[in-house]
């Protein structure tokens, strides 16, 4: 699903690489936590998977494709198979819940009939079927993140990347979001989630990859957030 082969990423005008000789393999259907302090390379990892950045050296394989050989015009096709969720939700404030989710399908040219069919389905998956006509500012943070997850999942991606999805939410709400991500994972989507939330990682008992200063320092199945807390 994802394969990093001795990947180094050095941003321009910086002395220290954001990722250095990182090697990692994530299998189809896994649920992986990416943990580590700020600046440890979690976001760079996710950006490399999305081909928003290219590695300075090493190779990145995603969904069976060598991203260094992927031509620019094929990037959209890759991203249609990857759902993405962020800490700040990134919803369009002037569109309703339904329209926000539909937007992701409209812009990849899906027909209206298809949109009318699948958007209510995915809103039911995230538990917002009765709030389809609300605007984002009428929703709680947890509900907004559910909309974002619905948008990421509506095209049934093989891979879901979540960049600190519970970072702006209170613990109770976070549990609900984690249950949703777990459900999506059980529907067959590989989930990679970066987080600072130790409680969640410890509760879920899934594979944990820890980054520190751009290095993979721990890779543990059924892991916890960290030893020293």
């Amino acid at each position, binding site marked *: 699903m994802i394969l990093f082969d001795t990947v180094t990423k050095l941003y321009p005008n910086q002395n220290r690489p954001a990722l250095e000789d990182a090697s990692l393999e994530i299998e189809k259907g896994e649920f992986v936590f990416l943990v580590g302090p700020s600046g440890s390379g979690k976001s760079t990892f996710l950006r490399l998977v999305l081909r928003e950045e290219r590695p300075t050296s090493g190779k990145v394989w995603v969904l069976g494709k060598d991203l260094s050989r992927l031509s620019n*015009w094929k990037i959209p096709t890759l991203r*249609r198979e990857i759902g993405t969720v962020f800490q700040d939700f*990134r919803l*369009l404030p002037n569109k309703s819940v339904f329209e926000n989710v539909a937007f992701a399908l*409209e812009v*990849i040219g899906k027909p*209206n009939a298809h949109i009318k069919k699948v958007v209510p389905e995915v809103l039911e998956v995230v538990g917002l079927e009765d709030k389809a006509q609300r605007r984002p500012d009428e929703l709680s943070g947890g509900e907004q993140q559910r909309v974002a997850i619905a948008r990421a999942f509506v095209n049934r991606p093989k891979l879901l990347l979540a960049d600190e999805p519970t970072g702006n939410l209170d613990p109770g709400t976070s549990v609900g979001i984690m249950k949703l991500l777990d459900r999506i994972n059980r529907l067959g989507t590989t989930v990679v989630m970066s987080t600072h939330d130790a409680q969640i990682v410890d509760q879920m008992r899934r594979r944990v990859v820890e980054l520190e200063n751009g290095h993979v320092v721990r890779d543990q199945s059924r892991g916890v957030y960290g030893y020293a807390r």
Partner: protein
Amino acid sequence: MRAQFVASEVGNGLRRNLTMTLAVIITVAVSLTLFGVSLLVRAQVDTMKDFWYDKVEVSLFLCAKSSDTPSCAGGAVTAAQRDQIEADLESLRPLVQDIYYESQTEAYARFQEQFANSPIVDSVNKNALPESFRVKLADPTQYDVVASAFSGRPGIEQVNDQRQVLDKFFRLLGGLQAIALIIAVVMSIVTVLLVANTMRVAAFSRRRETGIMRLVGASNLYIQLPFLLEAAVSAGIGAILAVGGLILAKAVVIDQILAPSFQFTAFVGWDAVAGIAPMLILVGIGLSGVAAFLTLRKYLRV
């Protein structure tokens, strides 16, 4: 491609950015109007050249009694000199196409006709007007051959090429055309910069949407098309205004003002306007399209 989605995006974009849209429309309209005017002036010069070069002749004015140039030292031209000049002109065929002799009587009649409404007619004596050979050349640019063969010859006061007079006038029009063209080029540069900046602002104000589009895998075409169409629509409106300005220039300035006062010459017809109009629209849309495309490549990368 969902046409309705793209169309609504374009409409929203134009409305949200109304001041910039208006600025683009106006600059495109002004620069294209000037471009059109410059093309119209060129068409006018061509029309006039066709009209006049057909009619221009080289005039060989013969000495009259009152002539005081050195070649007329012997007084009025003699019959022998006149016959010799005519024979020499005949020998220049086929460069010389037509030869026409105008006597003093005929010259006076023509003079009276030309200045019918002017008091000058009464003050000019028939004998003050020279007799002349009017020569039509097969190729008007070969004037020098005639001039060098005849000027300064005894019995000839002056060799005159009407084309030289016309050329001064055409040079004036050419100068006006060049000025219009230079302003048009400068305005086009302004237009390109303005379109580029408008696109930059539009891309920035919609960065949230375009960011999401990139993430969910919208193709570049889908992301950029609304922006490109916005540029094309505002440029298209500007170009249509420019065509309107050109039609107005032809209908009012040429047909209503110039043509009635200068009836002796030909003016450009509507066919010239019809030829220029599509060019203006293409140039306008092309110009802003290229500017928008280059800007978007920078601000809307995948």
